[in-house]
């Protein structure tokens, strides 16, 4: 009998999402500037069902300031735990690890996006679609940045694009 395995390994293409201009879509975050040029865009959180108390939050953080921006954490009223997590898939296994701090160099941005970085909320109550989740990013220099992440349903075709990208000049 044939024990030969037919391997159909088809090409992997990394998305070109990282090349999108930063102004692509704004899903309703209301940035409050900390240092000049520091802002959050495209924030959102996937809806879940009642009884699931974990939540992820995605956004782009743009450091348009002249100094490195060091994120040391985040908080949200009424939520017991907020951590920076990074999902990784190695050897076919997917897992999450805590990121203690993250530096965004001047003129760069970082994407918190599915299967990459996310803010991980635990002990969250149920949030309906359309609700706004209030969040505050905490930075090493003592400043913070408030933003709101609309809750909406996750849809297919999300792509991995956690890369620092220079902000296009405009």
């Amino acid at each position, binding site marked *: 009998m044939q024990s*030969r395995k037919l391997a159909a390994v*088809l*090409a992997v293409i990394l998305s070109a999402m990282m090349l999108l201009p930063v102004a692509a879509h704004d899903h309703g975050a209301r940035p409050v500037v900390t240092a000049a040029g520091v802002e959050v865009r495209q924030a959102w959180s996937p809806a879940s069902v009642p009884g699931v*108390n974990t939540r992820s939050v995605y956004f782009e953080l743009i450091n348009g300031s002249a100094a490195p921006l060091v994120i040391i954490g985040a908080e949200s009223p009424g939520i017991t735990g907020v951590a920076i997590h990074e999902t990784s898939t190695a050897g076919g296994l997917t897992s999450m690890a805590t990121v203690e701090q993250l530096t965004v160099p001047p003129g760069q941005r970082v994407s918190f996006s599915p299967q990459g970085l996310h803010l*991980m909320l*635990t002990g969250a109550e149920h949030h309906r679609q359309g609700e706004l989740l209030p969040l505050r990013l905490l930075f090493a220099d003592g400043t913070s940045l408030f933003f709101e992440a609309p809750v909406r349903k996750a849809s297919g075709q999300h792509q991995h694009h956690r890369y620092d990208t220079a902000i296009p000049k405009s």
Partner: protein
Amino acid sequence: MVMRALLLALAILVVAPVHAQDVKGVTLDKPSPVGDFELIDHRGEPFTREDLMDRWSLVFLGFTHCPDVCPFTLANLEAVRSELSLLLPPERLPQIVFLAVDPDRDRPVLADYVAHFDLSFVGVTGEPGEIARFAHGLDAYYRLEKKSDDDDSYDVVHSAAVAVIDPDGAVKAKITPPFHPHDTANYLHLLLRGVEGTN
């Protein structure tokens, strides 16, 4: 069998550059049978190997409190199924099965959870030993990272792949992320047709 494999190989080789750029997968020439297991579906009905027979199934293993990977995989599988519905009659659409490996947290919310993605999805869970048997049959792995008895926000390390089960209840292929809906649907369409010899 050899002929089929060759035809399948040919079909994939010919089509891959056009339609399936984003699909990573391994197709087994010799499907690997899933052994027996006894689980419970999200409606409280028994779910066993019998429920995998006579139809194609896509099985993804995860947990309901998974905030990042699982929702997107399930949303992609829903999109794959809806793309496939343009190519196949309803009775030949694969059933989508979510194997929930964290029963303490999964069982109470499983019905709501699968319905959140698609009403046709089947969520299954059960006793840890039975979950392990099904996972083993899928050649999948998971590990609960619970740190203490009152830890209710633990992570579960798990396989990222989706197992494609043939109508004989055997693993025919495994596909891995990203599950680009359009390309994955084309890949599966070819796989189903290739195996059934209707092309």
